């Protein structure tokens, strides 16, 4: 099994920095360096640097690129301006999710899409199968790009030490292309998956290590530390962001996941429109909720949610929130119970009250 795991260009740096490498989505990735809680709190208070080079990239280009994306995605991409990015779902005809993605527009006819690592081959095949007669190319650029995420309240200050790009001019979900730490052709976007301020940097794979070293050196005096996938997961859960395979999947639609804002029914046609319209109008059979527990035990994926003695749902993700210092998570709960204050969750035979939260735990 281990011989099939892919390595990012930063593999040697992870080992040098003491990262604990584990298999994740077919990649050998650092789950932590010094500790998940310490790395999590660094992102909330100073800054953390993540290697997210396992994420995939596809370039979509051609005369019909924008119309093609409008047809295969739930969000509207034809109205995106060059230099801006947008979050979207890509759905099956039955409304289940193929993947969630961020689409960056470079020009009228050229886009870059960020794909989940575990879904990249499936996404590329899916998109190519839908081209038909459209004048559009779907290019696999997964190996060409590395990705770094610098996240936290001091991220901008630190990144500014390594680039002349006017970072203050980049709005949320905006991006610029330019030089970072001497590496040209970097895409710097004000996006992230942590709920804290920060940037994601797409860079040529060969530039990954020198740029990461430059950022770590520049940021060290300000409290920047390398952060792993463990902190990335607890950060995104506190912020209420979905993770494919947990809150969204081929069986959990964007309407169920509370991502209806990404589904533009104003578009006359897109894949999944009819099924999603029915769910939005009639109410889905189950929905994703966020919850916290007044305990130290974490309710993890698969734990059963009860109303009285009736199973009404299951946990999709769970972790300890370092900011709240209590367990949080998400659950898929049957219609009629998503607003209940009487739910419990079974953790190894103990039923604990589950408190549903309509707001993310960190904003």
């Amino acid at each position, binding site marked *: 099994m281990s011989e099939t795991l892919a390595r990012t260009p930063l593999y040697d740096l992870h080992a040098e920095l003491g990262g604990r490498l584990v298999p994740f989505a077919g990649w050998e990735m650092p789950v932590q360096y010094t*500790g*998940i809680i310490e790395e999590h709190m660094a992102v909330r208070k100073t800054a953390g640097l993540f290697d997210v080079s396992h994420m995939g990239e596809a370039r979509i280009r051609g005369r019909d690129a924008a119309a093609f994306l409008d047809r295969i995605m739930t969000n509207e991409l034809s109205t995106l301006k060059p230099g801006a990015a947008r979050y979207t779902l890509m759905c099956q005809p039955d409304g289940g999710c193929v993947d969630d993605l961020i689409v960056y527009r470079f020009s009228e006819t050229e886009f870059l899409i960020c794909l989940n690592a575990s879904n990249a081959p499936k996404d590329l095949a899916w998109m190519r199968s839908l081209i038909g007669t459209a004048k559009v190319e779907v290019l696999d650029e997964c190996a060409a790009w590395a990705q770094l995420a610098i996240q936290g309240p001091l991220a901008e200050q630190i990144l500014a030490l390594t680039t002349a790009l006017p970072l203050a001019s980049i709005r949320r979900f905006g991006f610029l292309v330019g030089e970072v730490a001497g590496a040209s052709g970097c895409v710097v976007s004000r996006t992230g998956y942590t709920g804290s301020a920060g940037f994601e940097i797409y860079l040529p794979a060969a530039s990954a290590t020198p740029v990461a070293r430059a950022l770590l050196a520049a940021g060290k005096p300000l409290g920047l530390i390398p952060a792993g996938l463990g902190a990335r997961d607890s950060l995104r859960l506190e912020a209420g962001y979905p993770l494919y395979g947990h809150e969204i999947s081929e069986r959990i639609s964007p309407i169920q996941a509370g991502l209806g804002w990404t589904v533009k029914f104003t578009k006359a046609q897109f894949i999944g429109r009819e099924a999603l319209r029915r769910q939005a109008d009639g109410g889905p059979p189950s929905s994703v909720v966020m919850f916290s527990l007044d305990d130290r035990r*974490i309710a993890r994926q698969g734990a059963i949610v009860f109303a009285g003695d009736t199973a009404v749902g299951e946990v999709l993700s769970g972790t*300890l929130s370092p900011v709240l210092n209590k367990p949080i998570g998400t659950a898929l709960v049957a219609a009629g119970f998503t607003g209940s204050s009487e739910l419990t969750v079974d953790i190894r035979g103990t039923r604990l009250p589950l408190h549903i939260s309509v707001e993310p735990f960190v904003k």
Partner: protein
Amino acid sequence: MSQVPAHLRYTKEHEWIRLEADGTATIGITDHAQAALGDVTFVDLPKVGKSFAAGEVFGTVESVKAASDLYSPVSAEIVEANTGLNDTPDLVNREPYGGAWMIRVKLKNPAEAAQLLDAAAYSATL
């Protein structure tokens, strides 16, 4: 490298046990185990008076990443549980062989202790 004190005995499941002169023993998890778990957030320990067979699950240690069962190295009755870990579960990461001991037990079959690993044998499993 993780610490493996020479004066303790061990299980392959990464518990340590210190045999006391009075026929009792103190049990915890090893430095290797705490490092593998990462930040410990909860330790679920049994009540005083409960009995466990050798190899039986006596509790759970939970980190941000995962929950792991704790296995009794010997057949024993609980005489004390370290309730201080309720408030400071992270002590398991800082002092796995000291303040973060988990249970004190009365051995039911002292002969079982001969089955446990010594420090060299345990180190060889890591």
